[in-house]
């Protein structure tokens, strides 16, 4: 009983300090009605869904994955295929193979499309995850990256279904700032719930000490698979939202650049904590928007800095500095709740 109460209160303390400021910021941005600001905020929050998704697996298991964008891509394409209006489908997909011809015959409302896409991606994640979760360290990084390449190649070559290298068009553009906010709130709530759950704690235990967790009967592949699947499904939510937000995309949209961005955000913020995932997105996005503005239109008295690639270079530099100076990220793997706990109990000095 006690344990359950403490888990719920930990969940609240973990999620609310992140969710409430995000809601406040979103409302303030919506009030300004500045289109470019709303756009930037929406993109940032959709990226945040993907970063939080990556954190669920990598943050809690300590195993890096470069594959979360692949799952975002699968979900974006799935949801697009399901929701493009029926009238447009025959002309967009004239060569749809027979076993998928049913897709051309109907179209789902966007929310339903997203849900189905996320569930489908979850199934893919389980299939891919069974062998993947047995890897760690460098081999896990390489294998997940390889999976990203596989999905990219399939999407570029399977013209009949994915339109190949051509852009996916006709995707209902329904996602707004509020959808993005809903996605982030859901992602954070799910990630926090996982972190305080028994499965989450066991996964963290395997990250902290694999030998000790085996000694108490924790099955490392099993716990990793649970985290992996959940992680891929949250990343998929981000991908599907992104698809319905930008409405035209291709395989390159979900490529190495986005992967680098997402991993950089998580590492800069602090891979070990949910707070780190959120902080990382905010810091990186604010900085990169700042430099992008400098690059393209100048900022107030500062003239345009005509230096293509400035944003990426600055980001790479920040990533390097963080890796050298503070390898555990800005938050150092702590949560907002920890900061309060530390302040509230001054008697808790080590004995």
């Amino acid at each position, binding site marked *: 009983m006690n344990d359950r109460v403490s888990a719920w209160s930990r969940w609240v303390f973990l999620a609310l300090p992140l969710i409430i400021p995000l809601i406040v910021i979103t409302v303030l941005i919506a009030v300004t009605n500045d289109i470019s600001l709303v756009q930037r905020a929406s993109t940032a929050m959709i990226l945040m869904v993907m970063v939080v998704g990556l954190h669920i697996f990598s943050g809690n298991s300590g195993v890096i994955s470069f594959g979360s964008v692949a799952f975002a891509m699968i979900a974006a394409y799935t949801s697009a295929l399901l929701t493009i209006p029926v009238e447009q489908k025959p002309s967009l997909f004239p060569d749809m193979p027979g076993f998928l011809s049913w897709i051309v015959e109907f179209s789902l409302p966007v929310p339903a499309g997203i849900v189905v896409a996320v569930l489908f991606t979850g199934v893919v994640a389980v299939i891919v995850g069974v062998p993947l979760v047995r890897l760690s360290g460098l081999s896990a990084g390489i294998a997940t990256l390889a999976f990203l390449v596989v999905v990219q190649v399939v999407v570029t070559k399977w013209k009949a279904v994915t339109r190949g290298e051509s852009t996916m068009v006709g995707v209902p553009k329904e996602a707004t700032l509020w959808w993005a906010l809903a996605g982030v709130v859901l992602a954070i709530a799910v990630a926090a719930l996982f972190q305080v759950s028994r499965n989450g704690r066991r996964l963290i235990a395997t990250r902290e000490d694999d030998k000790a967790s085996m000694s108490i*009967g924790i099955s490392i592949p099993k716990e990793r698979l649970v985290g992996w699947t959940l992680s891929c499904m949250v990343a998929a939510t981000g991908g599907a939202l992104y698809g319905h937000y930008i409405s035209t995309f291709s395989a390159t949209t979900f490529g190495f650049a986005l992967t680098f961005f997402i991993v950089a955000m998580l590492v800069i913020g602090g891979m070990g904590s949910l707070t780190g995932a959120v902080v990382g997105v905010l810091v990186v996005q604010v900085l990169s928007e700042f430099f992008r503005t400098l690059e393209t239109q100048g900022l107030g008295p500062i003239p345009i800095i005509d230096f293509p690639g400035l944003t990426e270079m600055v980001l790479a530099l920040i990533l390097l500095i963080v890796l050298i100076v503070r390898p555990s990220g800005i938050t150092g793997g702590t949560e907002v709740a920890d900061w309060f706990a530390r302040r509230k109990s001054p008697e808790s000095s080590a004995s």
Partner: protein
Amino acid sequence: MSLLKLDQISITYGRAVAVKGLSIHVDEGEFVSLIGHNGVGKSSTVKAIAGVVRPTSGSIWFKDRDITQMDSGDILRMGIAVVPEGRHIFTRLTVRENLVVGATISRDRSANLKNLDSMIDRFPVLGKYSSRMAGLLSGGEQQQLAIARALMSSPTMLLLDEPSLGLAPLIVQQVFDLLKELNEQGVSILLIEQNAAQAIIASDRYYVMRTGGVISTEARGGDQVDVAKIEADYLNFGTV
């Protein structure tokens, strides 16, 4: 009838022989220690019992079942809990979370919580610091936590690999007293130790291991043992 029985166990890593033809047994309710110097194969023996390494020959029996080829999880489910060398607590989980994950093998929530309460009764210091990161505990407290975590699976037998490692002599005494108390409450104990004197006094019986895992001595432990004499013997064995 023995609870745990190792029958002619040999363990090799590539061409290196860690243990050769080791036979020991622990009876139900017994407190047995296995002592020996660095590198005589004590930890390999622990790993073999726990199912982490496979012996190259010989067999291991527990409750009359051959557990030689069993997975570590199944061995734990059969009732052997391991307190690994160097404690291996989860430093960045809280004390309470460390205990909760210790009950992984059981799905019975209410029994687990009851077990958790009884651990906190038995180890008041763990109750006091239950929401603190386990890494902030002192060495002795961490050792108590490691033992309590192992007990969360309600084992019939506790297997400890050098619990005295890195602890002050007074704390070591407390840990051994605790083990004795647990033993009196029915948990069988196999204690692997370098710290010969204190281990021998605490235990009912002890074995001395020599290089390659050959048993040199099997003798009765307890308070009345002449520790000075054992240490002299023990040192002799160690310097062969």
